């Protein structure tokens, strides 16, 4: 035991001391157990011998010799027993020692195991930490990517909005231009229509003017002997159908007969050739009020 004390480190020493104490206690307990059982028999044996010895003294030599033999035998027996006991104790000690060693080994194993466990734990912790770190990094990365994505989306939407606004503006511009063009075209068409209407009016007016002149001339008759220089100017009002409604002499010829002949001619020519509103509304309107100069 002393060898080991010197050999072990302080911690170990303490452990060994504790182990030894435990073992001693165990041994003590075991011894106590023996003293409770075996020793009692031994004591009984001793007492029996004592009694024998007392008795023998009074008995013969052989008996003494016998007794001595017996004693010797007993001593031997005792010695043997003692040896055996010692041996047994040594064995016990050895056993205890072994047990202690085993315990020790166990402790070491346990420690090793604990160490391993700890290492394992450590490595696990490290792995977890690493994983955590990795996760964090990934998360950060993801966040970054998400952020970038959001940014890009935002930019895209802004660009889209801009484009939409631009297109709308373009559309409005196009519409404005189209409207202007349409207006211009409508104006042009209107002008064209007006021009054509005016042309038609002019044509229709000239046609019907000739017809009216001819119709009146056909009916105009002056009495023989009428002076050739006489001229009269009249105004006539016509109905929409060309009927003469009213004849007024504006500038008299100076001759009642002459004026009358003019008036008669116009009345006789009624209804005059007259354009309908469908032919030309303007001519239809204008020709309802005309002045005529009549020269013989």
């Amino acid at each position, binding site marked *: 035991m002393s060898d080991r004390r010197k050999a072990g480190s302080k911690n170990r020493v303490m452990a060994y001391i504790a182990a030894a104490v435990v073992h001693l206690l165990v041994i003590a307990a075991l011894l106590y157990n023996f003293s409770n059982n075996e020793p009692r028999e031994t004591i009984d044996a001793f007492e029996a011998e004592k009694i024998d010895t007392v008795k023998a003294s009074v008995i013969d030599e052989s008996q003494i010799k016998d007794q001595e033999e017996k004693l010797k035998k007993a001593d031997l027996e005792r010695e043997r027993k003692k040896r055996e006991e010692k041996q047994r104790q040594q064995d016990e000690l050895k056993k205890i020692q072994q047990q202690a060693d085993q315990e020790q080994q166990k402790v070491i194993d346990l420690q090793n195991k604990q160490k391993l466990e700890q290492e394992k734990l450590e490595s696990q912790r490290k792995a977890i930490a690493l994983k955590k770190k990795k996760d964090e990094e990934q998360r950060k990365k993801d966040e970054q990517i998400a952020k970038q994505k959001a940014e890009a989306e935002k930019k895209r939407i802004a660009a889209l909005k801009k484009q939409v606004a631009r297109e709308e503006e373009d559309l409005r511009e196009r519409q404005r231009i189209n409207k202007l063009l349409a207006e211009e075209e409508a104006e042009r068409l209107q002008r064209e229509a007006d021009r054509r209407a005016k042309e038609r009016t002019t044509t229709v007016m000239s046609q019907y003017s000739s017809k009216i002149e001819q119709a009146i*001339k056909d009916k105009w*008759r002056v009495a*023989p002997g009428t002076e050739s220089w006489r001229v009269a100017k009249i105004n006539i009002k016509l109905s929409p159908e060309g009927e003469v409604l009213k004849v007024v002499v504006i500038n008299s010829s100076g001759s009642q007969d002459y004026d009358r*002949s003019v008036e008669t001619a116009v*009345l006789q020519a009624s209804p005059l050739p007259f354009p309908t509103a469908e032919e030309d509304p303007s001519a239809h309107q*204008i020709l309802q009020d*005309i002045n*005529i100069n*009549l020269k013989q």
Partner: protein
Amino acid sequence: MNNFQSFRRLLVSATLLLACLVSLPSYAQVELNISGAEVRGIPIAIVPFKVLDGSVLEHQINEVVAFDLAASGKFEPIAAKNYLSNPSRDEEVQWKDWRFIDAEVLVIGEVWTLGPDKYEVQFQMYDIAREQRIGNGKRISGLSM
């Protein structure tokens, strides 16, 4: 203030008037010129007088009258064959029938024989151009007229 207001009102109405004038298609008053009238007597239509009692007269009164009128130089009788109708009473006159044949004056009438060489003549005269009756008469006479 009053002056200004009235001036303003005048200005406004003048502008409106101008606008109206401008907006209307402005055409000058149409002025026609006719020259070259036919020189002749008044074309007159004398419808054969209707003999009411059914007797046949020796002379047609209308022919006699036409002859006389033509002789005057102021009239030009239109031949009876051109007439579109032969009215003898006022309500029978159709203006357009006579205007169509350029008659300016129309004479219609009725005759009643009263006795030998004695007749009662009733006649009416019309201005076709003005669609007016311009005369009527009643005569009782012999054919000497």
